[in-house]
């Protein structure tokens, strides 16, 4: 009985493997159209999961056949129709199981019409966000004067904390190891903690002599933590203004 079920499972895997081979071709076409490597689209865990499901479907098919006929077939070696049936079950049944799983688990693959509609809606939103993200990614961070000496992130952080310490109400002795995750809103009060600190830094020490200019939208988005704020200024130093 066990050998019979394992045989069914292996044949189910074979069916699912054939299905995956066709899928790989489609994936390669998609990758080519996007000018990507197929590795960028390939998902190993998903493939293995599908093959395991194919194994289970093959076993289930073998079991159902045995129950339906009241006995394990003895002519497996010659009755190729039964073997092809198990392979077909693995080929087609995986889709059923994945669709069944998707129906009850949110992370499942799109199967039902409702799920496809949801997937399309998400895709439309994603495309919309993609446009916005593309615009967002083009935000300029700012600049410094042409020809200024390079500066490290640690130096920037030190200068930022020194600048902060000079302001009324600030901790006059901030910890140099203040975590990068510290929100700027914990250091500066309203109405605009991030840009207010940026403007104060523009006029502080080396930042002032280097002609630091911080673009507000970029800093408002990316400079909300101390670490992000430091990286924003680093970005400005990577974009020196033309002389």
């Amino acid at each position, binding site marked *: 009985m066990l050998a019979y079920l394992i045989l069914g499972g292996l044949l189910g895997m074979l069916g699912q493997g054939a299905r995956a081979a066709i899928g790989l071709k489609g994936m390669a076409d998609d990758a080519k159209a996007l000018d990507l490597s197929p590795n960028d689209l390939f998902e190993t865990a998903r493939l293995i999961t599908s093959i395991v499901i194919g194994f289970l479907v093959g076993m289930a098919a073998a079991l159902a056949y045995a129950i339906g006929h009241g006995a394990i077939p003895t002519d497996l070696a010659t009755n190729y129709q039964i073997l092809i049936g198990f392979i077909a079950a693995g080929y087609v049944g995986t889709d059923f199981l994945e669709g069944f799983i998707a129906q009850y688990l949110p992370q499942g693959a799109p199967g039902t019409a409702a799920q496809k509609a949801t997937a399309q809606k998400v895709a439309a939103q994603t495309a919309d966000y993609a446009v916005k993200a593309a615009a967002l990614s083009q935000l300029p961070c700012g600049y410094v004067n042409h020809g200024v000496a390079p500066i490290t992130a640690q130096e920037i952080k030190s200068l930022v904390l020194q600048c902060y310490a000079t302001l009324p109400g600030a901790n006059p002795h901030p910890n140099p190891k203040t975590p990068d995750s510290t929100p700027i809103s914990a250091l500066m*009060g309203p109405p605009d903690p991030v840009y207010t600190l940026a403007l104060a830094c523009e006029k502080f020490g080396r930042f002032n002599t280097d002609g630091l200019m911080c673009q507000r939208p970029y800093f408002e988005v990316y400079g909300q933590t101390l670490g992000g704020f430091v990286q924003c200024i680093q970005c400005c130093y990577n974009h020196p203004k033309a002389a």
Partner: protein
Amino acid sequence: MTHLLTSFGAVAFLMLGTATGIAQTTVQGKIPLELLRECQKNPGFMPYCAQLIKANPQPAKQTIQPVLQVPVVKNPPAPNPPPQVVSLLPTGTGPCGFGAVNKLFVRAADQMDNFNYDSYLVNLLSSTPTTSMAADAKGASISYTDNVANGTQTATIDARASYLMFGGFCNDPFTDRNIPFVDGYAVAPFVLGNGNWNEPLTKTSTSAARVGTDLQLAVTSAMLPISRSYFYISPFYQTDFRGIAQIGGADFAWEPFAPEIALGTSAKGDPNAYYTFIWQFKAEAELTDVSNPGLTNLIKGNHTWIGETTSATLGILPLNAQNEKSWGDIAGRISVNASAEYYYDTQTGANAPYYTASINYKLGPCKQTSGQQSREIAAATAACTIQGSSAISFEYDWGTNKDTLVKTNQYLVKFNYAY
């Protein structure tokens, strides 16, 4: 084969019914296939899509935010902006963004009561919103008395409600940081009520009711000693609580911000502070055309009010670890405020000085502590459980209100609410 299919019965039928898209379920799954196809259909998306797929290790279906984490610039920090407010940011079509906001503010009928719409826009972008501006506002106050014995009713209103409709942030269009530029703007219609309503009508039934629109511009320049300024332009129509007065006009104001001198804003985080101090200054010019003074003491004709408002606020026992330990819930609640207004009408020579002093006790502190964060950080980052801010204040007012030219000399105990 027939027997086999019969054994599967309905299961096999379902299998065939759902057998679609082999490629979709086998190797695709990092991002929706629809998006891939969208990328194919729109060549303009191609560079972005390529980066999206390489940068996004999770299915796009599960999270939208990683889509925004596409690193394009050098040394990009980890961005995590809420996608619904991306429109506040400039796009490739111009230096400024445009975002519909729709937010109601309720404050005192007071020029200095933090009508800073820009700060709300900032909080929309921030993943670590700063303390609500409402928590620092005086707030609106309304009282109503029905004297059954005398058959008189009295209502006193000091409130301004504005509705922030849209705003945005702007990039510097110049390559010279010394040239002033607009870095943000906001547009908000408002309704203002200030004065007394009496039934029956008495001599003290003076009031001002305004409707108008605030246009706020944030202007920055590294050249100026005060690098940050907010400008307000507010056209309005004014009447009184009975709709008799007919007054049109426009208000122009300038409010500077300089953290170096605690003007308009200040730093925080001093663990040993027993007090905080902040002061505000607002210069103002108001042009009015009084067609019918109604229930005000204004004179018919044109007026040009020029003046300023200066306000100072002393926070006693601010919220920090030391004060919380020593003073418990008292920390972060008490403040003393004083303000002085002076306006001069260049058309009639009238003066309108007005002075106010108050001590306030905040009822609904917006603070939380959590985990291993320091209390200050937790208080700054925690979402307010109470959206508005309420306070009890004891106030003394003396002077002449420029909107009504009514003289005042009064003590008040008020319950204020700001939203």
